């Protein structure tokens, strides 16, 4: 048994070093494809985090006509609170409170503030139950705009839509690209093994004639492919962790109101992705090499 194991590893190493350029090409392709695959998962997770952050702070603003009487304000509050299945909280901000907010927002534009203050509306801050659905936000907007004494309703539905659209756009394209590259790396590993077998056809012929089993002949080639897949995945994982760290520390320096501070993945998710990248790399390598080794080895 020990002599077989020694033989298998020795032959695998000999084959790897003999086909150095092809091996390097297969490893690099695996690295790039698995890096993209892992990158896709991280980008999608970052979009999720960003969406969660945005939608976590999403509030609808229901502006009340300037000078609305307390009765009318109370009517609006009741109408909003009646929507128990769609509305989570309702906070009222009277005209003085609104003026305070306006003073903060227009601190650098006293002219605009001066024009706004005489007609400043009071407002309700409404937090919907499901903040990630732009359709729900739009339907609530239409519903609340029809209430008496409501001036207008503002919702961040367009921003939520944009983020979801971006997530789908990048997610699908990067996933397709990484799957295509994964296929390419499997083919390249397949080709490397095929070339390795061709280079050693005389040895294989002798092995078959002296009674080596097909499995004995195949195993070093299969291990070679497996190793190429694992090395490619490990390099891809290292690159992914490096890029993710770099991105995270870069984004941390952005201002709070940039809207991108949550476009990062900082939990254990990247390590989990790397684990699956290595499994996938090993699988692709093993499948590519096993297919080649079986196809080019007749009894």
């Amino acid at each position, binding site marked *: 048994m020990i002599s077989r194991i020694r033989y298998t590893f020795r032959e695998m190493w000999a084959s790897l070093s003999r086909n150095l350029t092809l091996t390097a090409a297969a490893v690099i392709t695996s690295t790039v494809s698995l890096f993209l695959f892992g990158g896709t998962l991280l980008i999608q997770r970052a979009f999720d985090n960003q969406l969660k952050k945005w939608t976590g702070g999403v509030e609808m603003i229901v502006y009340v006509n300037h000078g609305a009487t307390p009765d009318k304000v109370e009517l609006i509050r009741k109408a909003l609170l009646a929507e128990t299945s769609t509305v989570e909280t309702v906070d009222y901000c009277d005209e003085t409170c609104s003026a305070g907010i306006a003073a903060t927002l227009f601190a650098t534009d006293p002219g605009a503030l001066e024009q706004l203050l005489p007609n400043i509306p009071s407002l309700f801050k409404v937090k919907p139950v499901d903040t990630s659905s732009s359709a729900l936000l739009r339907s609530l907007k239409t519903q609340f705009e029809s209430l008496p004494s409501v001036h207008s309703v503002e919702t961040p539905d367009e921003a939520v839509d944009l983020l979801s659209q971006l997530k789908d756009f990048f997610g699908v394209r990067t996933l397709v690209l990484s799957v295509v590259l994964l296929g390419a790396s499997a083919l390249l590993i397949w080709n490397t093994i095929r070339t390795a077998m061709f280079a050693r056809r005389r*040895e294989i012929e002798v092995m*078959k*004639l002296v009674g080596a089993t097909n499995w004995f002949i195949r195993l070093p080639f299969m291990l070679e492919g497996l190793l190429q897949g694992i090395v490619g995945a490990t390099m891809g994982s290292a690159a992914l962790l490096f890029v993710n760290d770099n991105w995270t520390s870069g984004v941390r320096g952005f201002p709070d109101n940039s809207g991108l501070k949550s476009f990062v993945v900082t939990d254990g998710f990247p390590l989990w992705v790397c684990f699956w990248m290595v499994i996938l790399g090993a699988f692709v390598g093993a499948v590519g090499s096993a297919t080649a080794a079986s196809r080019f080895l007749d009894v």
Partner: protein
Amino acid sequence: MIRLENVTKSYSTEVTALRDANFDIAKGEFVFMVGPSGSGKSTMLRLMNRQERPEKGAVWVAGRNINDMPDSKVPHLRRNIGNIFQDYKLLANKTVFENIAFALEVIGKPRHVIRQQVPAVLELVGLGGKQERFPHQLSGGEQQRVSIARAFVNRPLILLADEPTGNLDPATGEGIMRLLDRINKTGTTVVMATHDQRIVNMMRKRVIQFDRGVIVRDQARGVYE
């Protein structure tokens, strides 16, 4: 040891390599297969170690019909059959010792057995002090001796030799034949395809003659005609 029953082998509709071949080879026999190029000699050897399968008939080796043998059992059959070739088929990047050890290693023999058997077989073929040389450092005759050593190191029941003297000068060829004769005397069945008239006439062993895939003569202590 080897029996062929009505064996026919074709490579295409136009090329029939063997037609209705029948013969028995007993254990310990030395048999020459003679005939011109393309007469079916090499095909016969390839049928005996299951490199080829016949369209019709049965090939029996050591009591088993090897046509019906599952592919997984073929390596075990081949461990009982040594093969010698005209072009030696030595591995250029391995030393003499490694070439022979390779044949044992790939069938899972442990290292201590290899270390014991390889020098012994090298002594048998007369290459005692040359185990560290590479094939290109040896003469044609010596390379063929390495090839014989590799085929015989596992002590097979049968040796199949396909034109083993084809690339050698007459004197070296005679030396190889003496070596094969010695191996045959240990009880190993030797089947040799050749069209070396001088060697066949010198050895006076059984001769099976082929002509366009048909056995036209099977003669004990025969000569080349």
